[in-house]
Every structure is written in C-alpha cells, then in structure tokens.
C-alpha cells in the first residue's frame, strides 16, 4: 500500500514540518518514506509545499502528479492542488482561512478550521498539526499514536514546551475529522 501526500500553504504555516512529521512517523513504524520540499526563491513570501510518500515497498518516485491526499492550508494551495487529487482521494482544507469548497464528486473532502483548533489549544502556529490530525481522521495512513510518538521524538527542542499542546491539537483535528460527514 502506498500513500502520496501533498501538504501546501504559506511559508509560515509549518508545511515542511508537517510533512516531516508524517515521514518520521512512517519511518519509525517501519514503512518506506520519502519527503521532498519545493525549494528556492519561489518560496520567498509565496507558498511552500512538500510531498510525502509512505509505502510498504521501497519508494520510487518521490513526487507524484496526482497525490492520493492533499492538505491545503491556504487558498492558493487549494486552487493549485484541489484539481490534482486522485479519484477517491482525500482533500483536507483549512476552512479557517479557506472559504472555497470543491465541486468534485469523486474525491472526499474534509473542511477543518485548523487555525481555530490550534488557537484554542494555545497557538495558531500549530495549525499544521491540526490538519495532519484531520487527515488521519479520514485516512489511516498511520495511526494517531504513531504520529503522536513522532511528535514526542522529533518536535524541535525549541518547541518542547508546546509538545502536549501539539499532541492535543493532533487529537482534536483527528476526532473532529473522524466524525465530520464527508462532503
């Protein structure tokens, strides 16, 4: 089984770490993983994104034209990646700042107010983790426990004090998405 996930948003939204979090979790749970960012000056001020592939076999292409899962944290990302989600795939939208909704029938979409969830837990900066949690609520790419474990092991020192808050945000995003009825 191979999962391809694209996470995209503004520079400051923690897009790259969200991807690494999944990659760490995948690795620690014995899967094959790749993580690759967009890089270079086009990142300046603009949007950043990364692609994560989690698989039971060695990963070939680290990037995909039609990802199975897309996490869109801002409008430009929604507009860029919504059309690319593979049939039957999942689209996670940060409804806190993205008003748009997909018209595509053949994909599943879940709208979570990532910023809000994060703010409630202490800092909107954790919105990336909220979105990851939401994704896990609809697709068991990894178990929440595995990702929580990754958080505990790989959250940067500097963010140490926010660890428990992050874990909470992860679970909140998870449960919220888990009970949302798919659009």
């Amino acid at each position, binding site marked *: 089984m191979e999962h391809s996930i694209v996470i995209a948003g503004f520079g400051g939204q923690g897009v790259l770490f969200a991807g690494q979090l999944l990659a760490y979790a995948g690795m620690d749970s014995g899967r094959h993983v790749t993580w*690759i960012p967009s*890089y*270079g000056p086009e990142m300046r001020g603009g949007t950043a994104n990364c692609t994560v592939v989690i698989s039971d076999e060695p990963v070939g*292409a680290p*990037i995909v034209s039609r990802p199975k899962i897309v996490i869109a944290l801002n409008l430009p990302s929604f507009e860029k990646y919504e059309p690319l989600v593979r049939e039957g795939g999942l689209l996670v939208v940060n409804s806190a700042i993205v008003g748009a909704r997909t018209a595509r029938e053949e994909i599943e979409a879940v709208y979570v107010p990532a910023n809000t969830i994060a703010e409630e837990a202490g800092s909107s900066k954790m919105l990336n983790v909220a979105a990851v949690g939401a994704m896990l609520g609809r697709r068991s790419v990894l178990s929440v426990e595995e990702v929580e474990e990754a958080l505990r092991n790989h959250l940067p020192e500097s963010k140490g004090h926010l660890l428990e808050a992050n874990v909470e945000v992860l679970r909140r995003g998870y449960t919220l998405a888990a009970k949302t009825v798919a659009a």
Partner: protein
Amino acid sequence: MPKQLLKGNVAFAEAAIRAGCEAYFGYPITPQTELLEHMSKRMIELGRTFLQAESEVAAINMVYGAAAAGVRAMTSSSSPGISLMQEGFSYIAGSEVPAVVVDVMRGGPGLGNIQPSQGDYNQVTKSAGHGDFHALVLAPSTVQEAIDLMGAAFDLADQYRTLVIVAADGAIGQMMEPAELPPMRPLPKRRPEWALTGASGRKPNIVNSLYLGAAKLETVNQRLQEKLERIEANEIRYEADGVEDADLVVVAFGTAARVAQTAVQSMRRDGLRVGLFRPITLWPFPERQLKAIAARSKGFLVAEMNAGQMLQDVRAVTGSDFPVRFFGRMGGIIPMPEEIEQAAREFLAQTLTAGAPAGPDGGNGSRR
C-alpha cells in the same frame, strides 16, 4: 547505527566526514547549499578544515592544494559552479592528486533554474576539462546510496590518485529518506609518501602537471590512460533489475531511475516483461554489461532528466540498428512514473511487438 531521516545534501556531507574528509572548500549554490552548511558546522566542531571560498574557481584550487598535502579533500557545487571548475579538474587530473567533488545538478543552460536536472552528464563524464582525462563519476539514486557512494568516492580517489565526481540531481540533494550512516572512520596517522608536507629527511616532493617536452608529456599521458583503463576494467558499477527476461529495458540513472522503477513495477504487475538497468558509474559507463543485455532484449527506453545525453553512450553500445527510444524532461522537471510507463507501453506496442526497428525514434528524435 539506526536509520535516520536524512536530507540528501546533509547525507553527502556527513558521509564525507565519516569517510575521513579532512578539508572542505566550497561556495554556496542551490540546490547543493545544505551540504556546505552542514560542513560549516560539523567540520569546525571536529577541528577539521572548512572554508567558504570566494568562488568555485578558488574552491577547486584550494581542494587541489589540500589534496596535494595528502589529506582527503572535497568540494561541492551545482552545474554553473561545476563549469567553473573545469580547469581545476584538469590540473588535478594531470597532477594525479586524489580529490572528490559532489555535483548536485540543476537546470541549464546558463543561469537556468535550480530545479533537479541531469544536464551535466556530458560535462562530467566526457572530459575533466581540457586534455584526455575522465573523472570517475558515481550517480546515487537514493539517500542511502548517496552515503555509500560518498565513502567509495574517497576510497577510489585515493586508490587511483584520481578525481571522483559524485553526480546527483537536485532531487537527491533535497529529499529526505531514512538512511543509515556508517561509523566515523579514524583519520590516518600518516600522509602518503608523495604528499607535500615539507621535505624533512627526504628529497623534495613535487606536485605538477607541466611537462614542456612533448615526448615526456606523452609518457605521462600514457600512464594516465593506463590508469583510466584499470578503472574501466575494475570499477564499473550498475544495478540491473528484471532484465533477464525483459523485452524492454528502461535505462536510467539517479532520480530518473527511481521514477522509472515505479513505472517498471507497475508494468510488471500487468505482466509486461520490462526491466530496469541503472548505471551507477556514469564513467566508466557499463558498456559490456549493457551490450550483453541488448543481445537478450528487444529494445531500450532511455529515460533522463536532460535532452538525451547518456542516450549517446547507450547508442554507442547498441549501434544504431537496435531499437532505442528516449524519454526525457528538461528544465528541471522530474518525469512522472506515468509518463515513463506510457512511453514504454507505446514503445512495446508499436515497435517491439511489431519488431520494426525503432532506430529513427532514438537519439535524434525530437529530444536529442
């Protein structure tokens, strides 16, 4: 060591350090920069030599100097920087000092862009600057292999007193993968006997590439050519997967090869007899091995992230009558598995089963 999630550029750097690299000189350039940045921290911590040079020209000549002193020395850059190092490469070749260079290739020509590319293939394999030399060129396709080949690069450089270039594309440099680092190798106690360390208690050593007399320079060149032949005879590396029974063999290296791998697997799942041949040494190119496979299969699909550079080496092996097709993306675009699969399926359908020679499609096709 347990596996760590490592970025290719960081893996190159840390692997070099553990292989005993004592001196790094480099100049920033995307998509290689994290390599230099890792060195700027670790080498200082370890009390080894790190210096950001004023340019790539200076960097390669600093490497030339440190290598002449008999320590494991390296630099790293990306395409335009590699162009600037050509003269230095030629001096290193002519002086026969061991040196390692990492080229994390980006889109060209000119300033081009910073996306992954394999556009330096000819520049790094066909000649080490002016004169008749070739660097030994290693092309990793995973972060783990980046680590392993980095160690091999230093060993080969020392063994043959030659220039070794590790050629990766931006994707290898930028991506993270779980990989295992080797333990730290102890640094050698002594310098090689030819090294410049001060002529104390021995005759002076000289590191030089100047031989005004044509006859003398020819003998030197003959020695260099014999060295290249030894390397060709002993150091060929490649990976072949499912080529035994294959009608069609996809030939690719680096990131293009791992993308092709995905395509090949999906076709094999559908029972198509497709294999993958991945050169790991780009120079020397695995000619004999590929020729043997050509004898068994019906056609080759060469996939590259350039306009078809390795393609010329493949065609030199197969000759122009054997069906060879090319699929390439340029400008820093990483080909998608679907694209390669489609090209392969068309090739199989149209030509190979029909058996008509596909020569004309190959090489001189619209993406030469």
